[in-house]
């Protein structure tokens, strides 16, 4: 049982993600996490401002239950299933990040940037607020995120999903190689 406390290798994690997708498909649903953001807008009354949010959200409430579960899963993993949350990334990435002033031994996330206090700094604001905004805007514009396009869409051999995933990488490479050095350098 010792393995459960260690980080799981990719060849365990990847198939377990497919298992999640399979369970949702056979439950009559689909594996696409970003849709819950639209559901939340609908519940908050966004239908008054745009027809896009006029939907019977009770039909989609399962995706809120799923992300509430994901939150609980994160809590359970942190409390009971993890010895150390230091991520052993490659030495090259460690040194690249060091040049940006980021220590890679802070847990899953560099808390020197991602903390409530840092909201009032320029880099913290950009990375949390602008970053989050782009996630919500971009996933709905593209009609899906990593789960909906890169896993479900590509599994279903959908050409649009391939274009979306190419977009994910264009954006990700621009942020990583141009924006991060600009904001953090």
């Amino acid at each position, binding site marked *: 049982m010792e393995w459960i406390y260690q980080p799981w290798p*990719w*060849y*365990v*994690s*990847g*198939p377990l993600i497919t298992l*999640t997708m399979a369970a949702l*498909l*056979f*439950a*009559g649903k689909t594996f696409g*996490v970003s849709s819950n953001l*639209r559901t939340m807008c609908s519940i908050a009354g966004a239908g008054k401002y*745009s027809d*896009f*949010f006029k939907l019977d959200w009770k039909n989609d409430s399962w995706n809120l239950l*799923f992300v*509430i*579960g994901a939150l*609980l*899963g*994160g*809590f359970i*993993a*942190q409390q009971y299933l993890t010895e150390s*949350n230091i991520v052993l*990334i*490659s030495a090259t990435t460690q040194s*690249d*990040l060091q040049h940006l002033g980021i220590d890679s031994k802070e847990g*899953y*996330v*560099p*808390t020197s940037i*991602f903390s409530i206090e840092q909201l009032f700094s320029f880099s913290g604001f950009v990375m949390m607020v602008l*970053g989050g905004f*782009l*996630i919500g*805007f*971009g*996933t709905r*514009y593209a009609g*899906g995120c*990593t*789960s909906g396009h*890169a*896993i479900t869409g590509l599994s*279903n*051999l959908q050409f*649009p999903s391939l*274009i*979306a995933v190419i*977009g*994910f990488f*264009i*954006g990700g490479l621009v*942020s*990583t*190689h141009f*924006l991060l050095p600009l904001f953090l350098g």
Partner: protein
Amino acid sequence: MRKLIYILLGIFFGIVMSKSEAISWYRIQEMFRFQSFHMYGIIGSALVLGIVLIQAIKYFNLKSFQGSDIQLNPKSPSIARYLIGGTCFGLGWALTGACPGPIFVLIGQGYLAFIVVLLSAVLGTFTYGLLRDKLPH
């Protein structure tokens, strides 16, 4: 009671995302720098098995547990929508190191700053809804 299954599946997903370290900002940086196989292995193996699964569903015409058709929702044809929308998401993915699922997992892990990321993402989706008719699709 049927609703409980979605919470349980979410818990399973949250544990897998945590234990695979796919929720880590550092892992996403490593991926966008092409300096490790880890994230490519996760997404790639999920995808290869996913292709087998979905082809099997189609070939054997498998149904859901309730007997309804499996929802595969073919995507509507367009280039602009997927390329521009996808690029916006990619920019945000590399900045925050999180896609929509991991945002929730990280909050559960105790990284409460991701509540701000979540609220911003909801605002982003709301903004898309307001501008949708004016955007190229």
